[in-house]
């Protein structure tokens, strides 16, 4: 058992290092901006004194490394700075929207993970059958669709023609849970469809690649039934790659929400980020990218740790 904690600690250390470098990239990228943020906001015609005062207010007259330390310190305290467009605190802007985004991604995950695991298992079990080929062709096609295409198709059918769900998911404060769930159905379904195809294909591939190993052949030669081979011999060994795929797809969900949120005008973090990008509101973009990147890095790290922890080969010391 000895090497599992060591491996995990190593992986955690690496994850934190990556997060630190990401914060550095995001900070430096914005600081090395061609042109000056102050001039950018105040316009070319601003008086030099005004620009200087504004720079001082933003702390832009300080040397780069001090600004970075200030910024990082603020981040750790939850202070993300102020929006350049309307002067509101970024943490306040983000707060509620982050919750909405996590809610949407969470609902999508609750649908997609069980469905894709089951489909992956079934297609691996009955591979080569009509069912397998059909699912394969459908998912291969589906994977190629841009998210907004899937979203508009769903709107077309379920919202415009059938009239079952609203085409705009404008959430308001104080909406009941069931009403929120109702509003979020179409965006969540879009995300589910986009992610399931990938997750299912990877699950199938993981199980099939394990099925090629000698111990599976051994199990078959012993006369064990197909179902038992898959569930008892193949699945535990395919668990690590499958967990990996699931977590990576969850990370993808968090990012994939950006486009879907815009289509459904859903008040989430993605929508906020796109608005900020269009207005070149750099502090908000900085904060949003940091949150998205951190979630992504953390989830990937989590996937690696789980993969280490569930690897049957690492369970026993040599």
């Amino acid at each position, binding site marked *: 058992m000895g090497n599992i904690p060591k491996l995990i600690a190593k992986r955690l250390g690496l994850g934190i290092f*990556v997060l630190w*470098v*990401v914060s550095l*990239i*995001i900070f430096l*990228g*914005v600081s090395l*901006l*061609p042109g000056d943020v102050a001039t950018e906001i105040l316009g070319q015609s601003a008086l030099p004194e005004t620009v200087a005062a504004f720079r001082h207010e933003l702390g832009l007259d300080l040397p780069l490394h001090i600004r970075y330390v200030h910024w990082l310190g603020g981040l750790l305290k939850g202070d993300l700075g102020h929006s350049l467009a309307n002067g509101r605190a970024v943490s306040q802007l983000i707060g509620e929207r982050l919750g909405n985004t996590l809610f949407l991604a969470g609902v999508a995950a609750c649908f997609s993970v069980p469905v894709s695991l089951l489909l992956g298992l079934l297609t691996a079990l009955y*591979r*080569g059958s009509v069912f397998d080929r059909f699912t394969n*062709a459908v998912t*291969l*096609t589906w*994977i*190629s*669709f*841009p*998210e*907004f*295409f899937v979203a*508009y*198709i769903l*709107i*077309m059918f379920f*919202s*415009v*023609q059938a009239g079952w769900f609203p*085409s705009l998911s404008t959430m308001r404060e104080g909406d009941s849970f069931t009403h929120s769930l109702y509003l979020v159905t179409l965006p969540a379904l879009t995300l589910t469809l986009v992610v399931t195809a990938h997750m299912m294909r990877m699950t199938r*591939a993981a199980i*099939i*690649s394990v*099925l*090629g190993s000698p111990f599976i052949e051994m199990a078959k030669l012993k006369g064990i039934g197909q179902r038992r081979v898959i569930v008892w011999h193949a699945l535990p060994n395919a668990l690590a790659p499958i967990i990996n795929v699931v977590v990576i797809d969850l*990370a*993808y969900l968090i*990012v994939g929400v*950006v*486009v879907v949120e*815009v*289509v459904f005008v859903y008040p989430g973090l993605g929508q906020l*980020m*796109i608005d*900020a*990008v*269009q207005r*070149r509101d*750099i502090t908000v*973009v*900085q904060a*949003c*990218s940091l949150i*998205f*990147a951190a979630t*992504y*890095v953390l989830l*990937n790290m989590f996937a690696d740790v789980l993969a280490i922890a569930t690897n049957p080969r690492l369970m026993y010391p040599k």
Partner: protein
Amino acid sequence: MSTPADHSPPLNIAPADRPHRQDPGRFRALLAGLRQAPLSAWFGLVIVAVYVVVALFASVIAPYGEGQVVGSQFDPWTAQYLLGTDNLGRDTLSRLIYGARNTVGIAFLTTSLAFLIGGGAGLVAAVVGGWVDQALARLIDILMAVPQLIFALLLLTIFGASVTSLVSIIAVLDATRVFRLARAAGMNIAVMDYVEVARLRGEGLIWILSREVLPNILPPLVAEFGLRFCFVFLLISSLSFLGIGLQPPTADWGSMVRDNAILITYGDVTPLLPAAAIALLTVGVNFLVDWFLHETSGLDDET
């Protein structure tokens, strides 16, 4: 990683030897394979061919100009405007045709650039090895830790949305993925005896890369090109859809969907056409790559 098993060139010790750039038999085998190719591969091939023709001859095929306002807003489908007009009264069909040139062309350009950067760096890392390899690999690992769309959004805010910045930003971000594959595939070849022989013979780095390593890892790279193209194409379309990719008045499929999306709420499918055009090309390329991989690697997941 896929090891090219069946076409390692013989040891060519004499420098005068013609290098095996492309085994003529392989190309012929591919053509023969095409004759027995499954329906999906043919489907992909036809789609890609049609898109290329439309993109190349856009100005000949399109009935109206790219930014030409020809009618009133949102005209329905008529004989004059086959697919109606858009939110500014431009002919939708013509915009769709010009979109093939702009969207596909820019995605292709970006992918090629990504392969030039990522493939080059990956091969150098594989062949040179040592600290160059380690430094590049670690840098790429960190770059890949940030989701591409988010990175692209951040960089586009910093540099502003123009075609040049769009192409270079996405090419650099995508080059990280190409680097990984090129490095992994190149590593398998770099340890081969014939590369060692070339080194001992005193060949330069460029010669070794282009004559010894590259021909041997071409099939996985070509397949990857198809897949990366799909990815870049979808990413650029999504960015344009979000309003930060290709800028108006350039006809582009992503922004066409965005600009005319309001029609969908009236049950009109026209805004879905550019999205379908995106989807169809991606499906076509995917089918083609699927078949190509199957042909060249001999890999079969049915064990």
